[in-house]
Every structure is written in C-alpha cells, then in structure tokens.
C-alpha cells in the first residue's frame, strides 16, 4: 500500500465522521418537526403535501395503525412499480423503444427497489426506459430509505417516550424524511457529480464512430441525480449495468471519493439522531465505536487479502502488486476494497469492482458484513434499527449478570420483546440458509453458478445473502435472471425487509407504552468500552455461529484450497 492509499482512507473517514454529529442533530430536529434553516423553503411544500394527501400532521398513530399505513404504502408502491416496468414499452420517455420486462423480472425488480435492496437482475441501459428509471425506480430510491428512516425514528421514540400509546404519524415521517432528510443532500451530491462529468440528460444514446471503424452506442441519461440518491439512500441500483465501475457513473477519483463516502454519510449521522432522541449522546458514541471496530476489521482484512499476490500465479514470472482482476484499473485495489467493504457494511450494494473476482477472503468479508444483517452503519434507518436489535440481544443475554431483569435505557425487556427479537433473529437464517439450500439442491437453479465447487457455492450464498440483507450487490457470474431466482430472491428481499420492520414497529410500540426506569449506577451500563466489547462480540457471535458452517464450505474452503494447493 502506498501513501495515497492511506490518504484515500483518511479522507473517507473525515468526510463521513466530521459532519455526522451535525447532520444527526439536523435530522432529529427535522423528524420532530422543529425549525431548521431549510424550513422557510420546505415548510410550504410539506404543508402542501399534507393538504393534497389529506393528512392531519398533528394526529399521531399507535404502532398498529402506523404499520398498516406503512404496509399500504409499500403495497401501492410495489403494484405501481410493477405496472410501470411491465408497461414501459407504451409509456413516454423511452427513446430506445425498450419493451416491458418479463413478469418475474418485473416482480423481482419492483420488490428490489421497494425494499431498498436494489438488487439488479436486469441491466439498466439495455432494459430500462428513462421513465422506468426516473418515475419508477427513482421515486422508490427516495421513499424506500425514507421508510427505513421512519421506522428507525419510531424505534427511537419507543425508547424515549414514557407510557405513550402513539409512536408518530407514518405519513408525516415519510414526508419529512424525503423532503428534509434526503432531497437537500442529493441536490448537493448531484451537482458535485455533474461537476465531475456525470451525465444528466434526456437525450437518446449517442452513436460514436470508433477509430477501429465500427459504430459504438454510448448510453446516456439523467444519471447524476439517480446516482446521488443511489448512494445517499443506500439504494445501490446503478443507472448503468456495471454500476459505479462505469466511467459515466463514476468518472474521477473525486467522484469515487464522494460516492463512497456518501454511502454511509446518513447512516453514520443517524447514530447521533438516536442520541438526541434518548438525550444521551454517549449511547451514540458507543454504537459508533462498535460499528467502527467492525468496519475497520473488515476493511483491514479485505485490504490485506486483496493486496496479497495470488499463490496460483506465484510460479509465473509476473510481478504482482495485489489482485487486480475484476477491478477497475482507474481505481485500483485500495479504492475497490474500501468500496466493497463500505457498500456491504451499509446495505447499499453499489459496486465499483466485481466482488466475484476478489480473493476468497476478500470476497468473504463483504459477504459476512451482509450476513451480520447490515448493522455496520447499514441502510438508512435500517442499519441502526438492526444494530439496536443486537443491542437488545446483548442486553438480554448479559444484562441479567448485574442482578436485574434486563432493561435498555430504562425500558424493561420482557417476554413480548424477546419473542419479537427472536423473530428478527430468524430472518437471516431463513433468508440465506433455507432459501440458499433450496437453490443449491434444485438442479435447475443450482446451474446458475458459473464455477464449480466452493466458489460456485459462494455465488449462491452471496446472492441470497445480498437479497435477504437488502444489500443488492451481486457476486457476478451468477445467472440471476431466471424465473426461479427472480421469485426466490424477491421473497428473500421481502423477508429481509418486513421480517425486521414489523417486529421492530411492534417492539417500539411495546417499549413506548412502558415506563422508563431511572438510569443510575445500578442500571446496565450501555456506554463505555465494556459494553462496546460486549456488543461487538455478540454481533460476531450471532453472525458467526449462524453462518460459519456455510462459510466454511464456500470462501473458507476456497481460501484453504488456494493457499494449500490441492
């Protein structure tokens, strides 16, 4: 590694961590309807939205009504997007005359964008009209992270409120998250990307005459705005098929830095939003420390693995400086590894290199990041609520050891909460192991892999993990666009989204209704190094114990084989 590698990593952390406390406070104020400097501009828009939709912004909902509103919104989103994708051939803004999608692919894609996964079994420039991209996918790119943010805020309120039946108003939270939480940041990032050369146009594709004398079609489109929300909203669905490895999506070193940092900009800030809700920023710092530890270990491991020479090539007279296969040479090993770890730590899923071509360990770490349930920063809202679930598990496991029934920030964890927690714990094993085992044992679906043996198994494992974890990144080489995988990965994505959201809303409702016991020297200390260690180990233990056997048969076996010979 060179000094510029370290500069990139340092710049990344500075860009993410420095603004986090400020953005976090801003988001808290926004979500609770307090005045901010953007209010004069956005408040009239917000009021107009409520008037059109007939929403009484002062009326709060209990958790059940909130969940119903959320589910209704999701269902309508899903059906609308499905219809757009099926009918895009007859819809406007389709200069390339692209036909509608096959129905399983349309279903898969609709689920993918509604669940903030952005798994792409299609290729953008070859199959999506501008209308589908902007009105179909683009809208979901905004509202799906906004839903995540809303659910997180409900969880925060559940912990912060005392003896309260209401947890907020879904329509208000959704509007505020979109309007104040995402739009302004996207505007800034889109402008930065345009400055760096990302296209933003409605013109049709350009045909270029190459020096070789052939014609090449150069796809264009309203890319900058889409890419901004793709990164900031932990969406990850690229405008072009190869995502941020494409020179129009990610033209320069600067655009690469902005894009990779914006993946976890909002997830990192939300930690502080949580701290403001519970009136204790020490909690934010403890969770941040835990996330940073897990992130840094993953980053270190991937960097190490990717900078190793390939032992299979050691005998050849080749000078190796790390593994460059499957990486965009404009970015190189370090920027690719950083992106891979960031995009899988957060449930983003955009890529600037092909994870399938990483070394066995370098590919395993992104996979493991996802298997942990996307809690290392994670998706907008989704990452932190996933992390808070782990906090509750850690508190329940070890909390008894202080001689009190477990409580978190003064809220008792009882049978009801544990039952819901257990439900969320089952999501990843079912989504990854059960659906993965089905895919691996049916001859048709299993033949989608492009490699035999351990690496082929890694492909199945990675892609189902990506779906269940709502990440959306792909382990290339896997023929995902088959009716079976379209439907099953679609199922995994729905499970991974609502298998968390519904129990969390129920937990939040149940916590909000409880009294809050005073926190003192006899309550479970949830800040400080001891708790950070406990939480980190709990996450690794739960993830490790669930997935170690599967990983052993995939990337670990591949790694051992590569380094020990056959």
């Amino acid at each position, binding site marked *: 590694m060179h000094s510029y590698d370290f500069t990139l990593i340092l710049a990344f952390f500075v860009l993410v961590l420095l603004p986090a406390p400020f953005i976090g406070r801003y988001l808290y104020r926004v979500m609770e309807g307090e005045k901010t400097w953007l209010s004069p501009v956005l408040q009239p828009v917000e009021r107009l939205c409520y008037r059109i939709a007939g929403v009484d912004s002062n009326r709060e909902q209990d958790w059940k009504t909130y969940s119903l509103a959320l589910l209704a919104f999701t269902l309508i989103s899903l059906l609308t997007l499905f219809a757009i994708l099926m009918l895009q051939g007859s819809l406007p803004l389709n200069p390339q005359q692209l036909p509608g999608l096959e129905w399983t692919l349309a279903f898969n894609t609709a689920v993918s964008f509604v669940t903030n996964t952005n798994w792409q079994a299609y290729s953008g420039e070859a199959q999506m009209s501008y209308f589908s991209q902007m009105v179909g996918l683009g809208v979901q790119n905004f509202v799906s992270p906004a839903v995540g943010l809303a659910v997180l805020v409900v969880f925060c309120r559940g912990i912060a409120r005392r003896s309260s039946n209401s947890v907020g108003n879904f329509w208000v939270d959704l509007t505020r998250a979109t309007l104040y939480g995402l739009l302004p940041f996207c505007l800034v990032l889109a402008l930065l990307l345009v400055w760096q050369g990302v296209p933003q146009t409605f013109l049709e594709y350009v045909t270029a005459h190459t020096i070789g004398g052939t014609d090449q079609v150069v796809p264009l489109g309203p890319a900058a705005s889409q890419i901004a929300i793709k990164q900031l909203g932990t969406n990850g669905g690229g405008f072009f098929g190869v995502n941020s490895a494409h020179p129009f999506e990610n033209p320069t070193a600067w655009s690469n830095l902005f894009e990779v940092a914006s993946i976890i900009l909002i997830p990192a800030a939300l930690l502080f939003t949580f701290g403001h809700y519970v009136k204790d920023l020490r909690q934010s710092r403890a969770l941040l420390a835990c996330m940073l530890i897990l992130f840094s270990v993953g980053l270190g491991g991937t960097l190490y693995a990717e900078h190793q020479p390939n032992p299979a090539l050691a005998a050849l007279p080749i000078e190796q400086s790390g593994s460059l296969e499957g990486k965009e040479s404009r970015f190189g090993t370090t920027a690719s590894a950083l992106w891979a770890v960031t995009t899988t730590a957060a449930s983003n899923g955009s890529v600037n290199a092909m994870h399938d071509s990483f070394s066995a360990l370098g590919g395993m770490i992104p996979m493991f990041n996802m298997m942990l349930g996307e809690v290392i920063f994670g998706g907008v809202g989704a990452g932190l609520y996933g992390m808070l679930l782990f906090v509750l598990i850690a508190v329940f496991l070890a909390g008894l*050891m202080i001689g009190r029934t477990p409580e978190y920030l003064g809220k008792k964890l009882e049978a009801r909460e544990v039952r819901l927690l257990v439900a969320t714990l089952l999501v990843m094993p079912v989504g990854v192991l059960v659906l993965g085992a089905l895919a691996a044992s049916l001859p048709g679906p299993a033949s989608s892999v492009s490699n035999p043996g351990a690496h082929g198994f890694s492909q199945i494992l990675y892609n189902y993990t990506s779906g269940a974890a709502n990440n959306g990144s792909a382990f290339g080489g896997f023929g995902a666009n088959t009716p079976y995988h379209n439907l099953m990965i679609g199922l995994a994505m729905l499970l991974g989204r609502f298998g968390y959201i519904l129990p969390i809303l129920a937990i939040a409702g149940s916590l909000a209704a409880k009294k809050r016991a005073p926190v003192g020297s006899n309550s479970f200390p949830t800040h400080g190094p001891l708790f950070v260690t406990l939480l980190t180990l709990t996450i690794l233990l739960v993830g490790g114990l669930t997935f170690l056997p599967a990983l052993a048969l995939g990337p*670990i076996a591949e790694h*051992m084989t590569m380094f020990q010979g056959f």
Partner: protein
Amino acid sequence: MNARIEPALNSAQQHPKTSIAALWKPALRQAFVKLDPRQLLRSPVMLVVELTAVVTTVLCFIPNPQVSTGLAVQIALWLWFTVLFANFAEALAEGRGKARADSLKAGSQGLNARRKNGQQFETVAASSLRRGDIVRVEAGELIPGDGEVVEGIATVNEAAITGESAPVIRESGGDRSAVTGNTRVVSDWLLVQITANPGESTLDRMIALVEGAKRQKTPNEVALDILLIGLTLIFLLVVATLQPFARFADGDLPLVYLVALLVTLIPTTIGGLLSAIGIAGMDRLVRLNVIAKSGRAVEAAGDVHVLLLDKTGTITFGNRRCSALYKAPGVSGKQLSDATLLASLADDTAEGKSIVEYLRALNTMVEPERSAIKSIAFSAETRLSGADYNGHSYRKGAVDAVLLYLGIERSDVPPVLAREIEKIAQSGGTPLLVAGDGQLLGAIHLKDVVKPGIRERFAELRAMGIRTVMVTGDNPLTAAAIAAEAGVDDVIAEATPEKKLQRIRSEQAEGKMVAMCGDGANDAPALAQADVGLAMNDGTQAAREAANLVDLDSDPTKLLDVVQVGKELLVTRGALTTFSVANDVAKYFAILPALFTGIYPQLGALNLMQLHSPQSAILSAIVFNALIIVALIPLALRGVRVQAADAASLLRRNLLIYGLGGLVAPFVGIKLIDLLLVAVGLV
C-alpha cells in the same frame, strides 16, 4: 447482621435433610421419571435433546458405512445422559425444597377440625375445610388451616412454621389476629375463620414453588425460555441446511454427526439447568423462612430501586433506651449514677429497664435488695417515678415534671445542663431529669437506638443502587436525627397509610420498583401497591393477604435478604446463558473440521485443538456438552454470589468469568476428553 438468619431448630421438629448426600438417590430415580416427554415439554431445549437421543438410538440399528455402530451407540448414550443430567439437576433442587416443606407438613396428615355448623360443631377432616369456614380450636390442638381469629384469645406455638419456640398471643381484632395452619394452640381456645382453600395455604404455596412440574415460571424465565427456543430454532436451520450444502459439493454428512452438532450447539447448559436455578432460588428463600406467593415477587426483588422500611423494629430496636447520663454542676458522677439506678430499679417499663441495664454495665454500685426499696410508681398526676431508700428520695421524669417537683423554673437550670438537655431534644432523643432529695442531679439521654450493623447494610444497598426510605410516625426532627444515624437516604415522617401509598405511587410513576414491609392492617394498601411487599407473619391477615411475600420470622430486615436472593437468581441465569452461548465457538472448531474434511481436506486446518480424529472430535464435544451440566449443578443450586458493587463492575467481573471463561473452557475440556477417549481406546 450480615449473617443469614437460620431458622432455630426445636426439638420437636426434625431437621430436614437437604445435603446432596441425602438427596442424590431419590433424585437419580426422579431423573428417569422425568424422561416422560410430557414433563420435558416445560423445558423445550431438553425435549429437543431427548428427540435427538431417540433418533440416534434408532440410527444405531441402521448400519452406515461412514459411522461405526460403536460410535453411534456411544453418541446415543451420551445424548441420553445429557437429558438425564439435566433432569437430575432439577430433581436435586426439588428434593431440597420438598424435604424442607415435608418436614413442615409432617403431622398435618389425618388432622381433624371442629367446624361450626349453625350453632353446632361437627368434626371433619382438615383437608375438607373451605375459605369462610369457622372452626374451634382448643388448647393442645393444631390449627387446621390458615385463618383469622374471630373470637377468643390464646397463646399459640408457631415453632413448626417459624422455628421460634416461644408461644405468641393471638386474639381477635387488632394486629395479632392471623394464625397459620399446623401451629399449636397452647392455652385457651380460638374461633378461627379459615381464609385459604385446600391447596392454597401458606405451606401449599411454599411446596408449589419448589416443585418442577407445578411451578409457575417467573416472567424473566419465560422471556429467557423464548430466547433459548429461538436459538434452538436457528441452530436447527443451520444444521438442517448443511446437508444440501454438502451435497452441492458432492459430499454427504452422516445424520448421526449432524444430530451431534445440533445438540452441542443448542443451549443445553442453560436449558438443562434453568429449572433447577429457579427452584433452588425459591428454596433459598424458604430456608430464610420467607414464603413467596409467586416467583414474580422474588424476581422483582432483584430490580428494586427503593426500599420502604418501618423505623420501629427494623432500623431501631423500637423502644427508647438510655444512652448517656449528664450531671449537673457540683454533682459527682457516682452520686448521679447511684441516684439514677435507685430511681429506676423498680421501674418495669422498657425505658426503666434500659437505664438499669446501662448502669449495670458500668458496674457503679452494689445494688440493694429490692425489698429495701420503697418504689414510687409513675402516676399521671406527678408524671414521676422513683424510689425512697435509706431515707433518701430519688425521682426521675420528664423535664417539666421534675422541674415542677423541684419547684424551680426552666431558667434556673444550670446552663451547662440546660445546653445538654437542649442537645438531646434536638438529636431526636428524650431527656429525663433525675432529682435526689429535692436537688437536681442531672439528665438521662433516652434515645431510639439504631440496630448495630444496619448502617453497613444500608451502605451495601446503596452500592447496589438501592435507596432506602425510613417510614416513621415520629415528628420530622426526631425522624431526621435517626435517619442520619442509620444512614438511610430519605425519610417519611409523621407517616400515615395514605402518605405511604402516595409515596409508593409517585416512585412507581417515575418507573421505579418499590419494596416495602409492614404488618398492620393499615399497611395492606401500601403492601399491595408495592412491587415487592413483605408482610410479617405475626401481623394481620389483611397484610398477609396483600403482600406477595410473608416472613415467618417477622423480621423486617429480611427484605434485604430477599433482594439478595432475587439478584442471585438473575445473575445465575445470566451467567449460565452467557457461558452456554460462548461454549459454541469451541464446539464449532471441534465438529466442523470433523464433518468437512471428507469434502475439503484443507478444512482440517480448522482443527485448532488438534483432536485425534473426526470420530474422537465429535464424541468429545458431545461428552463435554453432557458433563458440563453436571459440573455446573452445584453452581446452579448455590447461585452465583452477588457482591455489593455498582452494575459496571459486576458486569465486568461476570463477563470475564462466564463470558471469557465460557469461550476458553470448552477448548481445554474438549481437548482433555479427546486425549482421555483416545487413551482409553473408546474411539
């Protein structure tokens, strides 16, 4: 005061045999009886283990080229052992509690009662008595059930229940009207209204708490059970999906091995001991002579933020005692002490006796014969008491009364003495004056003496984060003085039942858990409102009904022990859960390489413990998994000791022992078992 109060033994009562030596044989038998799946339903994790044991046993008869029958039989045997060990732990815990309860119950068999039927009394079996029945109990008879005295007054020997051999008075009305079944009326007779149906008496409740099959699980235990079921489900999915994954790599995993992996992964350690921990916790309470009406209250005791304690009898001895003498100027110390002793010798009040005790300890004079003293009893008119002896007159009494007797004004009292009197009053004490032959000799300092050791006890509680609030009918000045001396955190002075209830409600509104103890009928609402209410057995039936704990010894400080037991119960559960989950890491490193080396030989590198062979690795993990239950039985029964410390240091300590220990111990244990199995030639 820190020592546990062990129940006093009396000769009539057999000491229950609760040592493991006496109990292991019946427990062993019970371990087999409890294999009944209907009983195991209460402990789902162990039910899963039993199912796998059945499956493995069946597999022993189906030849499999990958697994030798010898190994399959050994695995099946150890799986059965795992269930038996867990059953044994529960049976052992039950046995202890039952032995104690049985010894209390002894003698109640075939007991008859004289039930009132109109104007007549008819003889019926005690077991047929219902709530509301009225029975007559004569001297020498056992009271047939819990109840309230509606008529009569009698002395009752409650030794069978409390271990206290001195008989107590029970009478209708007032605060001494409650009687307990199986206690003996020593003199006179009582009409008792029965307040408990068969199966609901104090004793029945006690027995129900220590019987595995009938026991109601406490809320936290239910929550923990759910988590354990969740973990079991996760591992079921992990193991069940391994076969298709292995087949994808053209491998095949023997079912026996997969079953072994499943059992080692699911939380058998805590799953097997959970019930024993709960029963043993209740048994510890029973040994403290506290009866919990539900396990919930014991668990809540661990969570208590605030303790409301009556001053009288809990924090102080309850009556004012002499603590110092102050002499007037010009009077010698001997003159004062002799005069005080003589003035008090014939005084039979508690205060008078305390003065005599105080002076006897100083050994000031040779006491004269009682007959030589002409005692002057306290009269409402003079408000003085004292004695005439050898022609001298000695008097003592309240300040105003003595001044009146001497015919002097308050301002005539020498300033030195006046200052002392002032100080005594300010510190919450009561000053008395002593006069001899019409001359003011000095002052006596009477005060409510704080029990020795109570201050340290409160400091311990404070270290655990529990605040103590003293409840007293005294005026605020006196209350504050005693509070400062005892080291309580807060005081409710001039307390009324409404005031107590109000305080409990306001603490609870802040989310705090409140414990309180009381005995009077007017305590009942507060006892019912408190999260943990401890009633005194010698109190009223109303208080006993309202509270969720009853102390047979009627010792209010027992509340502190209950808190301790509650905490120990929770810590033991938490410690073993953490230990159980942390164990899984080592088990993976034992079994995964054994399973997978057939598919990818390179995965043998995961065999960190360098176990001898795949067969020995799997068997060692199973054996460790079974033996660790046995090894932890003593801890489960005894409970993890809880030091008085803040939560952070408790957590650090327990995480180190049970978390880190749980991570490391199986690595060592499995390796040792592997060496042993290979040495003995079992694999």
